[in-house]
């Protein structure tokens, strides 16, 4: 943390939303690709859930201890 810096609620808020969003989109997308590849339909749902959990976990790791 550089000197004189105030924690900004606005930017942390966007970062948290972005992380959660990225988690769902990235792992949902990977699931969707696996679905295309294996000709199944359920993997994208698992991907979305995995991404949601991973995103929440990542938010805790990065912003939870302030």
């Amino acid at each position, binding site marked *: 943390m550089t000197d004189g810096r105030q924690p900004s609620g606005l930017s942390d808020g*966007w970062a948290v939303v972005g992380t959660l969003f990225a988690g769902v989109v990235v*792992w949902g997308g990977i699931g969707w690709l696996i679905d295309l590849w294996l000709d199944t339909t359920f993997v994208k749902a698992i991907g979305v859930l995995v991404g949601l959990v*991973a995103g929440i976990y990542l938010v805790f790791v990065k912003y939870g201890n302030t």
Partner: protein
Amino acid sequence: MSASVVLASECPPDDPGFCAPSVLEFFPKPLATFDLFGVHFAITRITIILWIATGLMVWFFIAATRNMRLVPDKRQYFAESGYSLIRDGVAREVIGTEGLRFAPYLASLFFFILINNIMGIIPFAQIPPTGRFAFPVVLAAITYVLFNWVGIRQQGVGPYFKNNLFPAGVPKPLYLLITPIEFFSTFVFRPFTLAVRLFANMLAGHLLLAIFAAGTVYLFTVGNFSVIFGPISFAMTVIMTFFELLVQVLQAYVFVVLTSTYIAGAMEEAH
């Protein structure tokens, strides 16, 4: 002022119904076209508005700071407090004292976006050039190159990517889950959402205003009892104009705050 001055889209001539303004507003007829190095350029009224708006802003800041005095006149005071808002309120606040060297870029970015947003409610212009996706895209691209360059310069290539892709305090096997998320959120979604946030706000705001304004004209001219709804549409036009002013200022500010957040994040060593 008749609607045809500022509205680009045209209704079928024999259609008596209400014809709502559409995204075609952002694709006016080119006033001039030319090819340069194989790239096709079209100068539209949106281009002209962008030139005039940016020219006015540049002229204002040059004129206001040409004869600087210890006791500022009104113009110098306005320019100084505007610059100070970004320098002290954003650059110093978000990045820290090291952030002051980015203040010129951040202030230029803020006032460029601000003036081009506000063109959405200036009579006869009445379209925000930032509602054309190309402009936010270029601005977001500059920010993207800047924060990555700052991060690589400040931390070195290896540590910069390591800090961004492998956040500290995560058990090693979990990086399998976390790293793709970090990669996409930092290097893909950041510039994308930065551009889309500005673009979508300006596009939606402009269409909202255009629909209420066109609706007012239609309700007053179509005849029969529709005229009693005209004032409601007119009131909404006025209310939404003030609301748009708020959105326009806010979006310019958000763009700059997020840009400096990204720079701050790139300058920071691991958390």
